[in-house]
């Protein structure tokens, strides 16, 4: 049988299983249908809900502006799928091409897409984590619970971890007028994602909005009352704070445990895949029937030294899902690489924060426009003499330009002047990223793997 013939039969009557029914899974399913896949499509998800959007959960939902069940993702097209919601996948048999479900069922596939994403990292001390009032925020149900707690008018909220999620939660608390303490092990909020220079601005922002921000401290213990409700947290500097809601915002854990014995190259850093979204097995051989997309994937990117990047970014989930879907139903010559420019946004304390590229690769940072003190600026990150990333506080409209700079591997520090250049923007300074091996709130981009080359490259994506 010719392989082409196989592909045609597969497109007509093949079986595709998508494990992970959130943003990436849904967009992939839609893309599969848009690409003309007519076979059987099964969507497996561990949560009972239809696919919903997560960014509003730490913003509008906590503020009570949008009910948690109004966050369903808009559907781009009917996908005519068999839904297995509320049934987590528990195992994968690569040889038999079979996914095992928690409810005992098994589903056979011809091609598999894994979009299981990440989950909130729990508080490590189980007994303390079980105290009433200790929460995480990742899912819609988490958001309902936390919103409920905030509405009850706690005397103080403690947020542990000042990454993006923790900072957004603190922002929502302040907007609701609730006293909030933020404890961060690193020297500043957002330091893992944006470095110490920008982290200082984030710290100023938090303090100006009345957050009791404590950096450089660890929470050594949570204490409950006789009824099992959390009431107090102790810090490594000997201080303590009374709080009746504690939100654990220590970053994410990748949902790969179900693949532990499968032979797939899956681990705590995600599932390694090639630029075409095909998963590697543990021998380093690329599979041709297992694809990966979204937060759980880690794939090499030519713009960033072919490092394997894991991106916890909304836009990446969509773009990678579309590429994976296309490649799943295409012959090898028609496949596309996933070359998405990392980019994310956050809204906190009235400021819109946006970034492109890979800030944690940055050795130096230069404020090219605006001013850190005014909390309105654009800063470029440099890595080995080229622009590797940029971040804006309330200046997102300039990012397109910096994206081009990254694509062209433009020299750093930038050789040109710009509008709104201040004296602080005349010299680059160290970007101030902490040692990535120290546990912290976790960056939203994880760099991993080997960098085969640092040669200068030119990246020219095709435009619309």
């Amino acid at each position: 049988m010719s392989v082409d013939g196989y592909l045609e039969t597969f497109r007509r009557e093949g079986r595709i299983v998508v494990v992970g029914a959130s943003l990436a899974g849904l967009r992939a399913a839609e893309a599969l249908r848009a690409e003309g896949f007519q076979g059987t499509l099964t969507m497996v998800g561990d949560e009972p809900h239809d696919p919903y959007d997560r960014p509003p959960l730490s913003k509008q939902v906590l503020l009570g502006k949008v009910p948690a069940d109004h966050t369903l993702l808009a559907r781009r097209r009917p996908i005519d799928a068999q839904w297995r919601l509320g049934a987590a996948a528990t195992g994968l048999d690569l040889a038999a091409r079979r996914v095992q479900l928690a409810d005992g069922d098994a589903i056979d596939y011809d091609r598999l897409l894994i979009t299981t994403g990440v989950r909130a990292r729990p508080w490590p001390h189980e007994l303390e984590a079980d105290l009433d009032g200790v929460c995480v925020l990742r899912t819609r149900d988490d958001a309902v619970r936390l919103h409920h707690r905030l509405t009850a008018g706690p005397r103080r909220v403690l947020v542990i971890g000042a990454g993006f999620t923790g900072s957004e939660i603190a922002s929502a608390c302040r907007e609701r007028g609730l006293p909030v303490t933020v404890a961060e092990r690193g020297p500043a909020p957002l330091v893992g994602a944006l470095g110490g220079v920008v982290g200082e601005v984030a710290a100023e922002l938090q303090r100006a909005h009345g957050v009791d921000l404590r950096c450089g401290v660890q929470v050594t213990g949570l204490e409950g009352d006789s009824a099992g409700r959390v009431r107090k947290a102790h810090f490594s500097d000997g201080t303590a704070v009374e709080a009746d809601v504690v939100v654990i915002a220590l970053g994410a854990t990748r949902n790969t445990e179900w693949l532990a014995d499968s032979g797939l190259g899956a681990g705590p850093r995600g599932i390694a895949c090639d630029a075409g979204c095909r998963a590697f097995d543990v021998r380093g051989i690329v599979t041709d029937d297992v694809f990966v997309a979204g937060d759980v994937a880690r794939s090499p990117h030519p713009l960033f030294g072919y490092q394997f990047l894991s991106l916890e970014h909304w836009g990446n989930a969509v773009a990678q899902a579309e590429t994976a879907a296309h490649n799943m139903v295409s012959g090898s010559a028609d496949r596309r690489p996933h070359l998405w420019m990392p980019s994310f946004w956050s809204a906190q304390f009235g400021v819109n924060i946006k970034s492109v590229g890979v800030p944690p690769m940055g050795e130096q940072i230069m404020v090219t426009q605006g001013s850190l003190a005014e909390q309105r600026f654009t800063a470029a990150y440099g890595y080995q003499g080229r622009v590797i990333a940029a971040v804006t506080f309330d200046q997102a409209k300039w990012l397109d330009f910096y994206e081009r700079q990254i694509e062209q591997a433009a020299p750093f520090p930038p050789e040109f002047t710009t509008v709104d250049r201040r004296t602080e923007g005349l010299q680059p300074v160290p970007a101030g990223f902490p040692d990535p091996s120290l546990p912290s709130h976790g960056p939203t981009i994880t760099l991993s793997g080997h960098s085969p080359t640092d040669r200068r490259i030119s990246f020219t994506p095709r435009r619309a």
Partner: protein
Amino acid sequence: MTSVALLHRITDYANRPDPYPLYAELRRTPVVRDESGPYLVSTYWEIKGLLHDPRISSDLRNLTPEAAKAGGQEHDPNLPPAFIRLDPPEHDRLRRLSMRPFGPPHTPRRVFDMHGELEEIVSGLVDGLRGRDTIDLVDDFSYPFPVTVICRILGVPREDESHFHEWADTIAAGLDPVGTAEEREAQVQGVRRARGELAAYLAGLIEERRRSPRDDMLTAMATEHGPDGQMSPVEIITTAALLLIAGHETTVNLITNGMLTLLRNPDVLQRLRTEPGLAVPLVEELLRFEPPVQMLPQRTTLADIDIDGTIIPKGASLYLMVASGSRDPQRFTDPDRFIPDRPDNQHLGFGHGLHNCFGAPLARLEAQLALTALVRRLNGPSLVEDPPPYRQNAVLRGPRHLPIAISGVTD
């Protein structure tokens, strides 16, 4: 690099009815230095890139003296520039202050809440056409409608229109590159005089509002304090003048160009009658196909910039030919066809980046309501002459008159 005199042909009044073939010629060289000095950029991606490029300035004071002289774009010593001719951070501060009483985040419902009021103005103007068999769409409708609206929003008495109309026209005409040095000098002097008179007029109004506040933007700009503080008195004047002129000289062309395009495409006109929802994408297509602002002639470079292999030197005058970019076949399929429900229509009609049109939400709503009402209520409309007589202005391009024969007005 070739030196061409295309700009002269584009501004030549004889080419006003159809400049698009000239733009097509221009696009063969995406960046070209015109014989008269400025660099013209005519292709979509290059224009869009420059509109987001922080090495581009809108502040004339960054032109080299030669470029300023050649373009007649010298700084007005009497009155500081409005935010359209400023760079960040001054631009950003003034635009935030101006947006506060006009749009989100502080006043998100302003334009939305004007829906009923706008419809009333439209139906009043159309009612006035009863009993006529020929109308001039410009004088009878497209001009009075947006002018009434901008006057109400700002708080400028409509009955003073005869004064400021002339000032506004003179200032808008000043955007046009004209021929000889003497003509240019006369134009510059005329613009300065008009700006001075308009400023004096607005200063009086602002003082009045300060004493007896009303629900309008002049009052808000003169009395309210926000996180950015307040505009200085002279900043209020230049901002109010900018908004008054912009509200005056652009939407009129959008509506007139719209009706002209619909009368040239009767099948689309018929569709709009039965599908009012079509107005939304149709107005976007209009902004692409016949944009009221044809080019952005007021940009300069803060550094040498390499665009598509051409180095534009620091301090050069830069014309972004947005009407050409919106017809770039590299970006839009069938660019010379008017497709009212065109998908993926990211036109350059309102610009892009930090100077993107301040009044865009208002202009969109005005054009949508106006065209929907006109096609619904005018019976048997047909063009009396095609092409109609155009205004002199090549930058803010549109018909001076648009005579339309009608057989009646529906209620």
